[in-house]
């Protein structure tokens, strides 16, 4: 899969109330090459290339950090919860073994 095809997707509720605990769902396309597979023709190990970290910032704080190992599936999906404080951006950053990072920002609407 070409790196250019890597697309993060985020889903949060359209609007939330202050103090509400809401679910954040995330999905990013990435093959998450484990480093354990062998090229059947050459016998060479296929080098590891996974997203090893995901960070989420909201309202001036890091609200989640996830460290991933090769046992995380390809096209990693994850969901978690955050307590709503105020309207503003929620920023997502994924970093992979090749040193590439992928960003996406969504707006949290607190009513």
């Amino acid at each position: 899969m070409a790196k250019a095809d890597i697309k993060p997707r985020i889903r949060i509720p359209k609007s939330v109330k202050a103090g509400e605990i809401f679910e954040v769902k995330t999905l990013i396309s990435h093959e998450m090459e484990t480093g354990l597979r062998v090229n059947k023709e050459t016998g060479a190990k296929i080098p590891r290339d996974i997203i090893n970290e995901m960070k989420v910032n909201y309202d001036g704080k890091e609200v989640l950090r996830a460290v991933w190992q090769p046992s995380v599936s390809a096209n990693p999906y994850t969901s978690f919860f955050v307590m709503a404080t105020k309207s503003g951006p929620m920023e997502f950053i994924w970093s992979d073994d090749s040193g590439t990072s992928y960003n996406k920002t969504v707006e949290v609407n607190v009513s």
Partner: protein
Amino acid sequence: MQSKLDTTNSLAKMVGQPRINRRTFLTLAGIGAVGISAIPFAAEATPQETQSKIDSIAGGRPINEGRVDITLPEIAENGGTVPVSVAVDSPMSENDFVKAVHVFADDNPLPEVASYYFGPHNGKADFSMRIRLGKTQKVVAMAEMNNGELFIGRKEIKVTLGGCGG
């Protein structure tokens, strides 16, 4: 006790002993007792590599059972993508919250799966992800509280087609 004697007698018959003496009885009872106690122990044992990863995070702190709830399908037909959810019982207040949750697949070639770091701003320590499982095994999750206490939970899952191979 009666049933144990019956079993012992039938065992004795099988090995061709017409009558049971005290020594034979004790030997057979001993074997039986070892057999019975070995079964649950084997089911609870965590493979060495996973245990050493858990111990290195614990760093000598006691590991308590409970407060960690793992949700998994009973059977995974495709080990390449298995949904798992982990929820830790915690008020997630400023003074009492879950700092981290470490997830392991205890019989994968690389047993460490992920570590998630939380704080009071999460409201609840509850997350989902999809993982690769090479074979039938247990998923283990260990939660680290802000005061340093550790809690562990385990859940077994049957995997019909492994997800780690080439």
